[in-house]
């Protein structure tokens, strides 16, 4: 982890309100793992006050040039300002940060993506393919236009779901997951789940996994100030059995953002 300067190589709206940002980083930026994130200063101005954390969608290395990719939605003032940064703009970031996905040996990875939560899972799928490990990619979004990145996925089976039925299964990605499991192809000993998306979805996936004893990691989101474990601003509430009930709050920024989904107290996670 380091503070490094970076510059905007591309900042492109690829679906309404969703941008793909490529930032050139210097060699001082360590090779990141899928699931890790960067803490980005979204503007050279002092407004907004805080950096914003973004999961990495990818890391590109060509010769001496390194770049990271971020896939983000415009929702509030930070992302709005970010969307206005032109090519060539100098920014800076702290990273790579946090703990990424940790697949176990000899298991099929079942990736469950919801909407723009697909970003770190695309990075993860590329890594799995490199390592020649089997995976299944389940991806749900509101409509076909929001299925960013599907065409690029190689090395694993893909199943799509859309809320409007514009492509793939007409319904939620959770249904896809359940169907996969009902097919009997996977057991808790042969497969494990990695998920990222809206917390509501993660909660459902976690309950599904917990109910069947399946190992399940989820990539969380939440407000952060320092992103390096110093301020304790990013507590993850845990279930009572897992040290919850206020007994201990892991810091999402250093003990996450990828965490065992079955110990998170989703009701208390904002």
């Amino acid at each position: 982890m380091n503070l490094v300067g970076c510059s905007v190589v591309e900042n492109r709206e690829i679906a309404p309100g969703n941008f793909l940002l490529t930032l050139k980083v210097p060699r001082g930026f360590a090779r990141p793992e899928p699931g890790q994130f960067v803490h980005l200063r979204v503007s050279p101005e002092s407004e907004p006050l805080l950096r914003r954390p973004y999961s990495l969608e990818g890391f590109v290395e060509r010769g001496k040039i390194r770049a990271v990719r971020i896939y983000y939605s415009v929702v509030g003032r930070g992302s709005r300002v970010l969307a206005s940064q032109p090519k060539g703009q100098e920014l800076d970031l702290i990273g790579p940060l946090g703990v990424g996905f940790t697949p176990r040996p000899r298991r099929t990875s079942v990736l469950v993506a919801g909407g723009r939560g697909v970003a770190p899972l695309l990075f993860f799928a590329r890594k799995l393919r490199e390592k020649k490990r089997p995976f299944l990619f389940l991806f749900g979004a509101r409509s076909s236009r929001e299925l960013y990145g599907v065409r690029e996925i190689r090395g694993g089976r893909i199943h799509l779901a859309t809320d409007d039925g514009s492509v793939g299964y007409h319904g939620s990605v959770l249904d896809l997951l359940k169907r996969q499991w009902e097919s009997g192809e996977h057991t808790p000993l042969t497969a494990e789940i990695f998920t990222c998306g809206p917390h509501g979805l993660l909660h459902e996936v976690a309950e599904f996994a917990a109910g069947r004893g399946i190992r399940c990691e989820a990539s969380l989101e939440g407000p952060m100030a320092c992103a390096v474990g110093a301020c304790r601003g990013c507590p993850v509430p845990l279930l009572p059995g897992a040290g919850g009930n206020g007994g201990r709050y892991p810091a999402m920024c250093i003990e996450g953002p990828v965490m065992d989904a079955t110990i998170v107290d989703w009701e208390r996670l904002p």
Partner: protein
Amino acid sequence: MTHASPSLRVRVGSLTLRNPVLVASGIIGYGQEYERLVDLSQIGGIVTKTVTRHARAGNPPPRVVETAAGMLNSIGIENPGLEGFLEIKVPVLRELPCAVIVSVEGEDVQEFCDLVEGVSGSGVAHAIEVNISCPNVGPHGLRYSTDADMAREVMSAIRPLTQLPLIAKLTPNVTRIADIAAACEACGADAVSLVNTFVGMAVDSRTRKPILGTVVGGLSGPAIKPLALAKVWEVVQAVDVPVIGMGGITHPRDAIEFLLVGSTAVQVGTALFSNPELAEACVKEIESYARRAEVPSVADLIGALDVPAERGMIRAGRTLAPR
């Protein structure tokens, strides 16, 4: 013209800081968390996250929310408690290349005493910051520094227990902060530091809920800088001990402003999250400002604000503006 480098040293009680720039409590953990981002050998020192008698898990989420030019936090002093501190944090703090000021907070006088003795005995602290001002723990938190009598009680009880400089950290959420500062001085505080955060609140109109898990929290950041400067200005006129100023320092020139108003040292807080190099930049700017002002020492800048006599002034918390 060549000038000798101005001296940046300042004294806080018996402690000499190599320069007047510290990082505030709650910002930098116990130093280690930021070791790759902040060059501690360049700054005056750090103030640790506040340590309490017993370990605290802190408040339920969310604990931080950004507001206009500020942020609210309701961390709730998450910390490993005195024993955990001595065991896990002290060995790390010993290695830091800067002054270490340990912040402590008790729920009653006895806890303050235990903490001061424990921290003092560890040998790691260059000074103790007595946090009688956190808005995020209750029910006693704010009370100790909203009431001069209670501040007196704590300070008198802990003063005999240590040789270390004691810095009383004050809350701005009071009518007359100068009274509390004077009470702390009278009971043996070697310095006062201010401001801690201002009580604030954020609401999400879509969900109709408060945003913070604790409803209210503490406001920090550039939004509060004018308020913090006014509080420091009020206190420097009421006490003779050094005042350590903070609140919203975001640009190096903000640090200069706090010195001019009368702070002997400054603490960098929230803005460090965005700019980890801010504390170092403040040191550089103070040095170059002193050089441009052609003063031999940064001490010559402290309280050097030029206030025309006919203009209004604050004394002991009263606004005396000209008619």
